[in-house]
């Protein structure tokens, strides 16, 4: 067991585990966000719960952050190592003949997703941290002094999607996420050794997930942009 992260397969396994974890997270993230389309109240309730429940905040959140960092760092480390495994490149290489564009460009889709995540964190997470842990306001209310003012989450969300540039940026980010997932979803299962009679079915699920979830996020962004009341 020692040094498993020093071996190629160990690293691959770790990449896959972090990826699977992140995919579960994205699904969960999506499930809450889509509530905002149907019911601002439900969205507010869920957001408040996630933002204040101790297990989420002090257990899952650090794990998630570590998972994200690990996935990116390992991704870049592996990319450098893999590039070093071929010192001279081909004068002519016909990669599209044997593999998908997505599979060959995970580092690019991943890189753009990283940029997107940084912006996204600045947009929402930094603000949350400020309000909750620096300002010390754990109420989640628009006006902490007025319990009748209601939760602030839905309102903040809608405001964020007002400027067209941000909406556009998010859409591009989700397109890259889709591209990343189109290879990454199946790849994660292959890496943990799951390649069997269910693989065909899994490929179908992979397509639904990889296109469906990012498309859903895009829909949410556009929906709020065009229906926002401010």
């Amino acid at each position, binding site marked *: 067991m020692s040094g498993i992260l020093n071996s190629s*397969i*160990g690293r691959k396994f770790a990449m896959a585990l972090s990826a699977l974890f992140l995919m579960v997270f994205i699904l969960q993230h999506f499930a809450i966000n889509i509530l905002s389309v149907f019911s601002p109240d439900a969205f507010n309730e869920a957001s408040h719960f996630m933002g204040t429940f101790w297990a989420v905040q002090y257990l899952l959140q650090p794990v998630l952050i570590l998972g994200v960092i690990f996935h990116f760092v390992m991704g870049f480390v592996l990319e450098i190592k893999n590039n070093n495994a*071929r010192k001279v490149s081909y004068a002519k290489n016909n990669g599209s003949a*044997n593999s998908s564009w997505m599979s060959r460009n*995970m580092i690019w889709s991943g890189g753009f997703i990283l940029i997107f995540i940084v912006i996204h964190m600045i947009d929402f997470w930094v603000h949350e941290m400020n309000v909750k842990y620096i300002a010390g306001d754990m109420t989640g209310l628009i006006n902490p002094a007025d319990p009748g003012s209601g939760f602030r989450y839905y309102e903040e969300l809608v405001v964020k999607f007002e400027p067209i540039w941000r909406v556009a940026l998010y859409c591009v980010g989700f397109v890259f996420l889709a591209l990343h997932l189109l290879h990454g979803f199946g790849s994660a299962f*292959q890496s943990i050794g799951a390649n069997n009679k269910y693989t065909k079915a899994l490929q179908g699920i992979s397509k639904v997930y990889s296109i469906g979830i990012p498309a859903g996020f895009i829909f949410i962004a556009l929906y709020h942009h065009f229906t926002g009341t401010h």
Partner: protein
Amino acid sequence: MNLTLKIWRQKGANAKGKMVDYQINDVSPDMSFLEMLDVLNSELIIKGDEPVAFDHDCREGICGSCSLYINGEAHGPDRLVTTCQLHMRKFKDGDTIYIEPWRAKAFPVIKDLIVDRSSFDRIQHAGGFVSVNTSGNTQDANSIPIEKANADAAFDAATCIGCGACVASCKNSSAMLFVSAKVSQFALLPQGQVEATDRVMNMVNQMDAEGFGNCTNTGACEVECPKGISLENIARMNREYLKASFKG
């Protein structure tokens, strides 16, 4: 048909190489790719030039010697064939054909299109065997029945010819398809179970030490493999490796 060939020429392991253009005329569509190179070489020899060096031996797709990266693909555009079985009918009059050696740090060029694949041998030395003496005093061959599906799958994995097309095609120069084929063959047979733990650990460690890249599951190896070795083998090797890691 008439063709333009762009061929990698490199005098020796430490020399600098470059792509050189050659013109070849009257190529018959029934020729194999290597026979076309034979014709080029005889022309070069008669002209007083040095012939192009390339590995080849059986010319029927089983020895695994031939190893050309043709127009950006290992063993060229045809599927499930080695370079020696690739026929010129797959090309058109007037085509320009790029011919390069396998490129990987673990496969250094020896000369022109010839690379050193001894890293593959060293991986096999590390564990590609069942430790049974060849005395012949083993048990009767039929004493352990083996489920046909497993025997067939073991055979499919065992058909790997060790040509290195998987490494050459992989954007990461990963050797996992090659290694997993051997690991799978033994993992599927009762005879291979005894040493399963050590085998997979030793072979993977050696693979890493040789400087091959990591697998990112692009699947290029499976597509370009002249024997159609399946990615399932890599998944099986991953399982075997994890099992072995936890076993210690």
